Structures are given as C-alpha cells and as structure tokens.
C-alpha cells in the first residue's frame, strides 16, 4: 500500500486538520466540520455525515447553500452518535435540523440513536437510497445511498438557505432522492489504510459492475469493455428503474482514482445515451465528488428535474467542493 498519510490511525484527523487549514470558511472541532460563520437564526440546519474516504463528500459540501455541518467517521465507518448530537445542537438556528443519511445500516443506526438523544432540537431525517445495483426489498438493508447524496445536499441546502421550514426542506430532500438513481462501475479496488491492501482483487481485463462506495464488491464481474459499453450498462440499469425523460441532472462521478479525461469520455457516452432516449441533460457535473478512496471507476447519478429542483440546483453555493453564484 502506498498512501500519502502519516499513519493509518491519524489519517482522518490529519486530513481534517489540512481541510481546516485550507478553508478558512470551515471550522473543525471534535470531528465535526462546521461553517465558520456559525448557524443562522431561523434557517433550518443541515447535517450529514458518513465514513471518511468519500471526499469531497460530506465535509467538502459544508458552506453557504449546502450543509451546515458534516460528521466524518473513520474510513468507511459511519460517525458515532456523539458527533451527530454535537453537530445538530451546534447548527440549530431555531428552525430545526435535517439529517441527511445515506442508507447503510451503520449510518442509519448511528443517526437514529443521535436523533433520539437530540431532545432540544426538532430533527427530521431523509434517507438517501439511489443505487439501482442493489435490489430494493423490505426484507433487506435496501438500496445504498451514493451519488444522489450530493443532489440532496445541494438542493435541500438551497431551500434551507431561502428560509423554508423544516418540513419543506425535508420534503424536497425526499423528493430529490425519489427522483434520483445511480449505478457504479469499478476498474480497480480501493485500498483502505487500515487493511493496507486492496479490498478485492480485480484482475487486469475485468471490471466490477454495480459497486458501492465502500469497496463493497459489485453484483457481477465482467470483461473490461469500452467506455461506451460500460456507460451503456450503467444507463440501462438506471433507465430500467426510472425511465429517462425530460430534463435531467447528471452526475458523472469518479471513484477517486480516475482521471478527469476519462470521466469526460464516459460523460460523452452518457450524454448520447440520454439523447438517444429522447431526454436531455439539462444540468451536469463531471468529476470526483462521491469517491471511494483511490478506486478507479465511475458512477452515474441521474435526477429527473422539475422547475423547482432546477431553480434550487442553480442557486448560489459556496463550499470547498461545489461553488457557483458567489
């Protein structure tokens, strides 16, 4: 394993220290990343969190128009209730706090425990579960939360910034999740600092289809194919689940180790696929946003926009990871 770290045990804290040094707009305390500006009275607070290793998610999305606080756990390990309780109390501006939770057993349990203990704050939760590679069923853990988390954080963040009440912010967050679907493909495994070797072996010439963002193996393994074919597999899976129509918001996301040049190649294929279905890429993002350490590969996330969602997507945002309009 080759990692640019000091030690596996200190990697998360060292990275947070670096983030704080790099971004005067952030404040880091007790493993919670806040806006340095503090809570705004009357604004709904947005708190998210999850394992580290997905940067810029979540801490890179703390700032105007997006999150108020992020709770980073150990690498690929959800945060603990203390962090969430602390963050929730700190960002409450009197209008309540929305917890944005990716649907993983660990994240769900820790956020639930925290929410129960946040007695003085009105807390609502939205569960993000957009990954169509996972069969959705009442009898399983359900779909994973992946790329749609960025959409939920951006759009709910914009509505909160407008002064909407907690119920409204929670409702738009849920609507975004409902209208979003993702599918991921890995060319290589990631390597966690704690394990020190790749989570799975993926030989030359093979790719994993339907991977998550924690190095979980995918649903199937197939021969390496062209960007066009791989994008086609991802888009077919999404289209089967949520027919592509109208104006779409598209995230062509790198898993952390894939160069931007290749992501643009894949985006070109996704865009023609969408055009081929008679739908339209109205807004897009191409880059490493919801990553899995050093994994090479990509995921596509699609959200069916409506006028409100488009307006909220376009609203100003000022975070280390996403910025426009200010």
């Amino acid at each position, binding site marked *: 394993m080759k990692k640019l770290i000091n030690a596996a045990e200190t990697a998360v804290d060292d990275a947070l220290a670096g983030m704080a040094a790099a971004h005067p707009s952030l404040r880091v305390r007790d493993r919670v990343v806040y806006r340095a500006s503090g809570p705004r009275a009357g604004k709904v607070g947005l708190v998210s969190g999850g394992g580290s290793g997905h940067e810029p998610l979540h801490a890179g999305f703390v700032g105007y128009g997006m999150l108020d606080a992020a709770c980073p756990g150990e690498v*690929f390990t*959800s945060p*603990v209730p203390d962090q969430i309780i602390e963050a929730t109390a700190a960002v409450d501006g009197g209008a309540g706090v929305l917890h944005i939770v990716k649907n993983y057993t660990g994240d769900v349990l*820790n956020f639930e425990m925290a929410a129960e203990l946040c007695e003085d704050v009105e807390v609502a939760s939205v569960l993000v579960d957009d990954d169509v590679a996972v069969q959705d069923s009442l*009898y399983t*853990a359900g779909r994973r939360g992946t790329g749609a988390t960025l959409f939920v954080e951006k759009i709910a963040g914009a509505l909160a910034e407008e002064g909407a009440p907690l119920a409204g912010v929670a409702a738009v967050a849920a609507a975004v999740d409902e209208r979003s679907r993702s599918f991921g493909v890995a060319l290589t495994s990631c390597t*966690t600092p704690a394990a020190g070797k790749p989570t799975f072996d993926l030989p030359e010439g093979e790719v994993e289809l339907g991977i998550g963002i*924690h190095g979980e193996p995918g*649903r199937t393994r197939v021969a390496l194919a062209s960007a066009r074919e791989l994008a086609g597999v991802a888009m077919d899976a999404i289209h089967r689940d949520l027919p592509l129509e109208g104006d779409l918001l598209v995230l062509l996301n790198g898993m952390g180790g894939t160069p931007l040049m290749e992501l643009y190649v894949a985006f070109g294929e996704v865009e023609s696929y969408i055009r081929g279905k008679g739908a339209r890429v109205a807004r897009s993002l191409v880059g490493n946003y919801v990553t899995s350490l050093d994994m090479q590969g990509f995921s596509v996330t699609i959200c069916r926009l409506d006028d409100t969602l488009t307006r909220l997507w376009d609203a100003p945002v000022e975070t280390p990871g996403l910025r426009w309009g200010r």
Partner: protein
Amino acid sequence: MEHLDITLDTAFFVAWFEDVARTVRLHRDRLIELDAAIGDADHGANLDRGLSEVRAALAGWPPTSPIQVLVSAGTTLIRRVGGASGPLYGSLFRSMGKALEPPVTLAGFAAAFDAGVVAVERLGKAAPGDKTMVDALVPAARALALAVRDGVAAPEAFALAGRAAEDGARATVPLQARKGRASYLGGRSVGHEDPGAASSALIVGSLATVASGLRQVPGDT
C-alpha cells in the same frame, strides 16, 4: 461440579472485556478479511479500536459492579466505534447490563445476555438466517439457557455457548445475506463467513476462556 464454578463478579466482567479486546486484536486481520470479502474491510479495525477504548475506560475508572462494566463498555462502543457493529454491540452490552440483577448468577447472566441479544435483533431488525452477528448470538443465548435449565456450572455453560456461537458463525457461510452491507452482494455473499458472526463468536468464546482461566495469553499489545 460445584467446585469448578466461578464467581461472576465485577472482576470477571472486566476480565471478559480484557480478553475480548486481546482476542479481537489477534483476529483483527482475519475480521478485516472476512469483511473485505462481503463488506468494506473495516470490521476488524472498528472493533479493535472500540475495544481498546473500552479497556482504557475500564482501567481509568474502576467500575464497582458488573452492571457498570457492561453499561460502560456498551456506551463506549456506541460512542467510539461507529458503523453497524458499534451501535449493535453497544446495545448488546448496554441492554445486557440493564437487565442484570446483582448478585449475578449464571441464570441471571443467561437472562441478561438474552435481553442483550433481543436488543440487537430489534435494533438491526435481523432474524437468524439473515447472515449477521445474530446468527452467532442467538445460538449462544439458547445454549446458555439450556445450560441453566440443565444445572451446568458456569465454565461449562460458557464453553457450550462459545461452541454454539462458533457453530452459528460457521453456519453463516452458505447463507445469502439479507441484512447489512453483505446484502448488497445478493447471491455473491454465499460462501463467506459473516464478519460480525465471527466476532460474536470471539466475544462469547472469551467467556469460556476467562471462566476456565486456562488459556495462555499469547502476548498483549
């Protein structure tokens, strides 16, 4: 067999967690590998980190009752581990502690352990056969209850529970996961032991180790 029995006092519970911490550290990499196969390769690191915190907490603030040991250990796991296993194991021990009545008999221990396991099942909404820690914990609880019914002494009862947990863990191999991260794999989860079931077997196994007082501890770090 009464001469072979032991006292389930505060020291016993402290020794239990010390042995669990040692054992999990020894099996850290195996647990990571089990989790790498059907999860995210952190289970061994998570538990190892959490249990050294448990140990530190118990050492720094000597608890005066078994209940304190269990609740403190459970709280530490909830506060320091994260992931799925943090809240689940945390609840196991906290609920167990809350259900315990002093002075602790084997019957009381078995009942409290069962309460802990029920809390895990409730929190995780997992049933036996879902390929989770529940598949090791439920047989262990059952073995303890049977041992109590049969009047077996604690060391022997713990040994039976440990074997039941181990068998339960091994029995997760052919299962398809329905809960937790492994469920994302669908049919590909078949053929691998569940890491949480494996760590549960270690935890239960430590009871027998401590009770028997026989095991040579191979170095402590």
